[in-house]
């Protein structure tokens, strides 16, 4: 009896080991590794192997179109308080004109999710931080509302909330006295969805925005970046933003 049980156990053990080895071999070429990191389990921490980024094609971005801005406001519960000068701005449309050629084009500008973010460097409490996957965020639990980050950011991507906020989206807590900016819709990314602006741009058929993992050579964004010329705004600062632009 005991010998039989032992034999059965060892056979099962052998099968388990061989299955594990096979799995290891299949993982080893690294083809699927990034995808596994992207579709991580809810209890798994974000990985340094991912670098989320945005590619914005200004040739496809129509002047006057603000579908992305509207989608952002709806998603993140940003409402007009009647004070446009001090309202929080997570994403804005910037109209550009080359004075020599007269060419006009426009592009959405939001937090550029820098690799070396100045807002993180100046934050006295550690509230402004960069997540392992490259998303720059404000931890409102420790933000004291000093606004150093607003001054440090060369992209004017941070805002402060001046008025009480009610009726928040349960996924996007916001409140008075804290600095905030584009989160790249981190609550969506963590559930394998695209940021609201990208989704709206694609849904409207403009296809001017591509979101994805810059570190994954198989992702659409990485292939675009490898194939076509793209620039970062004020690349001379060497902050290496995760948001890139085509046609600027």
């Amino acid at each position, binding site marked *: 009896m005991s010998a039989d049980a032992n034999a059965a156990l060892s056979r099962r053990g052998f099968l388990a080991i061989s299955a594990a080895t096979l799995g290891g071999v299949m993982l080893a070429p690294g083809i699927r590794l990034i995808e596994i990191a992207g579709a991580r389990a*809810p*209890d*798994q*921490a*974000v990985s340094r192997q991912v670098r989320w980024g945005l590619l914005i094609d200004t040739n496809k971005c129509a002047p006057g179109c603000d579908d992305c801005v509207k989608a952002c406001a*709806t*998603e993140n*519960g940003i409402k007009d308080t009647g004070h446009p000068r001090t309202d929080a701005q997570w994403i804005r449309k910037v109209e550009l004109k080359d004075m020599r050629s007269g060419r006009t084009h426009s592009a959405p500008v939001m937090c550029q999710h820098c690799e070396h973010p100045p807002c993180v460097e100046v934050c006295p409490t550690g509230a402004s*931080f960069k*997540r*392992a*996957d490259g998303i720059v*965020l404000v*931890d*409102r*639990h420790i933000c004291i509302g000093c606004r150093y980050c607003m001054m440090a950011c060369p992209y004017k991507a941070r805002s402060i909330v001046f008025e*009480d*906020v009610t*009726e*928040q*989206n*349960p*996924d*996007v*807590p*916001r*409140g*008075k006295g*804290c600095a905030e900016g584009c989160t790249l819709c*981190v*609550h*969506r990314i*963590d*559930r394998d969805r695209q940021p*609201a602006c990208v989704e709206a741009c694609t849904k409207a058929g403009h296809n001017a925005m591509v979101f994805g993992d810059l570190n994954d050579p198989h992702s659409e964004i990485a292939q675009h970046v490898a194939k076509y010329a793209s620039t970062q705004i004020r690349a001379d600062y060497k902050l290496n933003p995760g948001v890139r632009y085509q046609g600027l």
Partner: protein
Amino acid sequence: MKRNAIGAPARHIARAICLLALLLPAVAFAAGRVPMPVVDIAKPGKCVEDTAIMRREHSDLLKHQRDKTMHEGIRTREHSLKECVECHASANTGSVLGEKGFCQSCHDYASVRIDCFSCHASKAKLAGGAKP
């Protein structure tokens, strides 16, 4: 002699103060000025931890979860404030705040200010905005 003359009224006053101090709790509580918390759960069932643990440690659990979610992107449903609200929001108001709200009634009783809902949604679900 002199000491006694001044001492007698002082002693009376001291006695009166002592009596008042002894009676004060009785006066305060007899009037029932502090209402007991209303624990009205619209969705009865088992919570993520035992009641005794939740009563004492819910703030620690929430704080631990908040750091995990914020910095590491871990969005498990257990110990998440959103899930608390999802289950404990009142059937009438849809909120955990308000006089009979699950969170507020108890915090009022314990005289502890809740800061959570100056930023977090106190209602379970809203029209508009994305849902997971």
